[in-house]
């Protein structure tokens, strides 16, 4: 926890742009206080061992690049369909079976799906087996489901597992 407080302190001073003793102390106190509060409320558990392997870092970079590529492409497609005078959207709410199991895997998958334009994750079933995704334009349901499954979910799992 001291380690993370020091990290937050450095971040605080970095973003503030001043490195005097008073500011360092404020940064440390804030970081430590917030972390202590989060731990007391049970928001963060005891330190989990999360060690990134070198291969995972490369995969994470790949995921980031893939995400930005998708973001740009999806935005251009969306823009084109918006600017056409008579665009026919075919929205659908899809049910996509989830392979992601842990909280982190599910949250990361759902967030990345939501961040790309055209898809919005709406709901996750109680048994965590299915994610419901609102999609702006669907021609072929099976294809759309497969695209989501093999796109973000597969890559997220590739990074985290």
């Amino acid at each position: 926890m001291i380690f993370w407080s020091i990290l937050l302190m450095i971040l605080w001073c970095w973003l503030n742009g001043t490195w005097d003793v008073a500011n360092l102390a404020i940064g440390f106190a804030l970081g430590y206080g917030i972390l202590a509060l989060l731990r007391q409320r049970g928001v963060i558990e005891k330190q989990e061992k999360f060690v990134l392997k070198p291969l995972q870092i490369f995969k994470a970079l790949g995921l980031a690049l893939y995400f930005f590529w998708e973001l740009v492409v999806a935005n251009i497609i969306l823009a084109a369909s918006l600017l056409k005078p008579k665009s026919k959207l075919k929205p659908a709410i899809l049910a996509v079976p989830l392979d992601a199991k842990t909280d982190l895997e599910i949250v990361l998958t759902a967030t990345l799906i939501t961040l790309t334009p055209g898809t919005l994750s709406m709901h996750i079933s109680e048994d965590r087996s299915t994610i419901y995704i609102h999609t702006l334009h669907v021609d072929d349901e099976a294809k759309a489901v497969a695209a989501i499954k093999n796109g973000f979910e597969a890559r997220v799992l590739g990074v985290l597992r």
Partner: protein
Amino acid sequence: MMHWHYTLGAILMLLGSLFCLLGAIGLLKMPDLYCRMQSTAKGQTLGILLIMLGVAISFSDAVPSSRAFAVVLFLFITAPVGGQMVSRAAYMLGVKPDETTEIDRLKGEISTPSPATTDEHAH
């Protein structure tokens, strides 16, 4: 081209605001709440990203750049949560998707109030 980074930053900022504008047009043109949510909640993610990239490049300095990075980071963490929550809450309240939505796998999965008393179009 003495101040090339100002030019590049300005181009990126303009491009970003163009995408933000498209998000706003989408908000007006989309047929139902869920499609509108797509436009508002995250249609601007690329727009803000480009604007902040433009800010970082035109300053070309570590402190404003890291602040711009923080803006993008927190937007990317918070914007999807809002979009998800609003659309989910709307579905639970019984807001019907537009009739062009042929496939609705969520139907019957969440309990919704039966009569269609809620109207998504606020006049």
